[in-house]
């Protein structure tokens, strides 16, 4: 299966199979005008199967969330058709306005205009907690 190479943009590679749509949603790619290709279940020597997302000429993207969703994913930065950078994403200290707190007793469930902030509470276990109520962040896989 061939997808045209991108000229300027990002290739998020080595996403665990089935994880591409989570990232698509959390990076809010659906709200952007740029060209996005999602490749599901591509063969991978390392993972067996993997997902890939190719994004051509994206707007500003907060890539920090990738480390939370899939710490094994890599980001390739393409400029003028050439790979100029290959990054593994560290876990960010904070994730802002990407995840929603699932605790119905959290103030973020009712207070308007409040940034939804999660902080890294346990690096080894990749655990993030809500800044307001300390509830553990979980991916809403809908």
């Amino acid at each position, binding site marked *: 299966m061939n997808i045209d190479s991108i000229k300027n943009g990002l290739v998020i590679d080595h996403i665990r199979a089935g994880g591409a749509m989570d990232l698509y949603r959390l990076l809010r790619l659906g709200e952007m005008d740029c060209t996005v290709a999602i490749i599901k279940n591509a063969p991978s020597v390392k993972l067996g199967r993997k997902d890939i997302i190719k994004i051509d000429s994206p707007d500003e993207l907060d890539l920090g969330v990738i480390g939370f969703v899939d710490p094994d994913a890599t980001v390739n930065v393409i400029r003028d058709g050439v790979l100029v950078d290959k990054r593994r994403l560290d876990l960010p200290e904070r994730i802002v306005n990407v995840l929603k707190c699932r605790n119905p*007793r959290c*103030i*973020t469930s009712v*207070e308007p205009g*409040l940034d939804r902030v999660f902080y890294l*509470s*346990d690096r080894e276990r990749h655990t993030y907690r809500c*800044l*307001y109520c300390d509830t553990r962040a979980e991916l809403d896989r809908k």
Partner: protein
Amino acid sequence: MRHLIDIRDLAQKEILALLDRAGDIMEHPADYREACRYKKLATLFFEPSTRTRLSFEAAMMELGGGVLGFSEAASSSASKGESVADTVRVVGCYADIIAMRHPKEGAPLAAALHSSVPIINAGDGGHNHPTQTLTDLFTIRRELGSLNNFTIGLCGDLKFGRTVHSLIAALTRCEGVRFVCISPEELRLPGYVRRELLERSGADFTEVRGLEEVMPELDVLYMTRVQRERFFNEEDYLRLKDSYILTPAKLASARAGMRILHPLPRVNEIDTAIDADPRAAYFRQALGGKFVRMALILKLLEEAGK
């Protein structure tokens, strides 16, 4: 602007200085009678809490200041749908400092992001209650003479008990505190509290099911209430409820110098026959809460330059 939202907002040396000051206020109340003259504390209690609110109000009154506020959401603008942010912006126009209790977890932090005056978290749902923790620390230090090198038994509901989690967070910063966690299986400490507080700090801790087996080891016994609604079935509750009620018979094997603490309100988890025992420190603890809150109000007003 400095606020107190979580006990971990305070460095250990700040906590010790606050406890020193609370002790000084307790010994020399007359020296502080005018300390907050012309200052106002707003008590914004979006849910009722008699003890905590009265403690804050008494604290401000004994500092010579005034108090305004409300004691339930129905008598506040929240009932009209006003946000927490707007409420504190407005109250900050009328008061110099705010003590807030709110049923939503994190509400005092949301308030602090918008407030022009210091916010004290007076309890946010089942989350934080830092002035209770300061009160607990004050009581332990006053009763034992130190916050270091002692064994504390935490008994009852360790899963949902916010006072227990905050107290553990504070005591893991002290030297040589050994934790004995006494609870039914259903109400054990949550895994993250074990991992992120006890294990990470390298604290010495054990978990047991029975109170009597560890009683002779304890310097402090911190009691909490085991609530019926926390159990999945009535049978388990009935089987376990008496195990976590402190009676004179269970106290027989305790050390003479042990102290019993309880955040109150008590329902039936401490037999009233124990109240007259010198080891029962829970009413002295409630008194200490006022002095701790006085010291905290003074500190935050001073840091705000008020």
